[in-house]
């Protein structure tokens, strides 16, 4: 193992720690946040970081650290929720396409191609008009875009796997098609699907924070869940000239979270699929 490999490993370990931290923060936000979510103090407006407000306060006197801690819940909920929806939709679709083969496969994948070619953000925005700008609607919109990746991966893996000898022998032993699909093919595509899952979490987080930043994301200013980091960054962006701390912290939170998930995904890919390295 050379030194480059060691640095790489420690970077992955660091990312894993950060991801775990985001999880913990999201779960425990009400207990670890220094202030209440709705707490505003008109005497404490627009303060720069200080011992009583580590990340300063915003234009309404709300503690920024508290808002960022709560915001982790929005990001994680969106990331995980989207990943799960895309996983279920896409994997089922891809499995069917790959397993059926022939004209079915051709037709199903043509639909995937059309979706794949369109800009994600365009589809999110159009769908968000339909489903409304709440967390549920956003999850559905993001999921309806994200499934395409899973469909492609799952189908490709099925096509590869179903020609392998152990599948042929199962077939020769008289296993039903459903049994082959569930017991022999599915377990063999788990690796690449997990890698895709790891990468789809940060892209959902990125999409959500971007939409919130440009003002067409989740539109629920008094949510008991917390406010999206993207919305916090947008607030900060408006006040950036005089109060750069207001954008610095939310932006850092978004960047570090996405970076950690991506790094973790790369590490997992190398681990589960050494061929690709």
């Amino acid at each position, binding site marked *: 193992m*050379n030194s*480059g490999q060691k640095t790489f490993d420690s970077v992955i370990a660091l990312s894993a720690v950060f991801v775990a931290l985001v999880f913990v923060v999201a779960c425990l936000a009400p207990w670890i946040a220094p202030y209440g979510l709705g707490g505003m103090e008109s005497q404490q407006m627009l303060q720069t970081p200080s011992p009583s407000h580590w990340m300063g306060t915003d234009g309404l006197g709300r503690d920024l650290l508290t808002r960022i801690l709560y915001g982790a819940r929005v990001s994680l909920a969106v990331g995980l929720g989207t990943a799960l929806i895309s996983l279920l939709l896409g994997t089922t679709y891809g499995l069917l396409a790959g397993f059926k083969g022939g004209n079915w496969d051709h037709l199903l994948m043509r639909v995937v191609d*059309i979706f*794949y*070619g*369109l*800009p*994600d*953000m*365009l589809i999110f*925005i*159009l*769908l968000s*008009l*339909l489903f*409304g700008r709440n967390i549920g609607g956003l999850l559905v919109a993001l999921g309806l875009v994200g499934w395409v990746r899973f469909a492609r991966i799952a189908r490709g893996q099925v096509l590869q796997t179903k020609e392998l000898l152990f599948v042929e022998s199962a077939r020769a032993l008289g296993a039903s098609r459903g049994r082959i699909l569930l017991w022999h093919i599915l377990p063999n595509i788990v690796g690449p699907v997990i890698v895709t899952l790891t990468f789809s979490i*940060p892209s959902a987080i*990125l999409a959500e*924070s*971007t939409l919130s*930043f*440009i*003002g*067409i994301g989740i539109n629920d200013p008094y949510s008991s869940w917390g406010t999206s980091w*993207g919305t916090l*960054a947008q607030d*900060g*962006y408006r006040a*950036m*000239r005089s109060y*750069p701390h207001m*954008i610095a912290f939310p*932006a850092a939170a*978004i*960047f570090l979270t*996405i*970076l950690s998930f*991506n*790094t973790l995904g*790369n590490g997992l890919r190398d681990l589960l699929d050494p061929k690709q390295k």
Partner: protein
Amino acid sequence: MLHLLLKRCLHGLLVLWVVATLTFLLLRIAPGGPFDSERKLPPEVIANLEAKYHLDEPLWRQYLRYLGGVAHGDLGPSYKYLDRGVTEIIAETLPTSLVLGSLAMLFAVLVALPAGLLAAYFRNSLIDRCCMSVAALGISLPNFVLGALLIWGVALQLGWLQIGRWDDWSSVILPTITLAAAPTAFLAALLRSTLIETMGEDFVRTARAKGLKEIWVIAKHALLHSLIPVLTVMGPLAAALLTGSFVVEYVFAIPGMGRFFITAVTDRDYPLIMGVTLVYTTLLVGANLIVDLLYGLVDPRIIRVE
């Protein structure tokens, strides 16, 4: 070749039609109308507005009317900007977005090509690791964060460039870098990995065996071969640039189509949303068509197979 071109064009038209139809339906069933406002309008006014925009007709007739208009280049009236049609608004704002997008694409290719080459040539060295770490950071950095960072650092702190204007060459620098960053990083990493893979191929060994210098082996033989995967991602990359332009135009207050799209979404200005969506799709279909043709140039085998 002609056959291939025709087939691709037809496929492109099909995609456009599907997108137009789906968007049309989607916007009709979306809750909330364009004339919902804080104050409730009297029913007569609403009836008049609906009659003016043909919203009182049956759905299929509205749909046919819209498709007919699109075929003639008329994207309908805007609900928000009463004095201008959608076609006019797009004609005014599209050039700005195209300039920004093309500059970003150029930037991405011009930076990613040498960076990928260097990283592959000096693989596993310090240069390689630096390039790839920067690329990893670039892929994870949201463009609104980068844009804000550049505005804060370069424009506000250093005072080198002005922001909030779009009139001379200096005002395009920061938006171009912001838009191009993620595609550049992605392209460089992709080029590096394909180059390294290609280096193991037989024809590369032959080139080495005949005594070519390593740098020429890479630049002439391996690079050409590695362009195919790079071309493959050019279509999705064009999509990424289009999407990025919403955000970059918002951050830098550039009067392009993306910014109008975002305001159209908040205003529920349906004809404008549909028009912009169609233009984006057309651009994408066009980009993919060009990529397909370039494929044929880079690898003539593809045409013969088709």
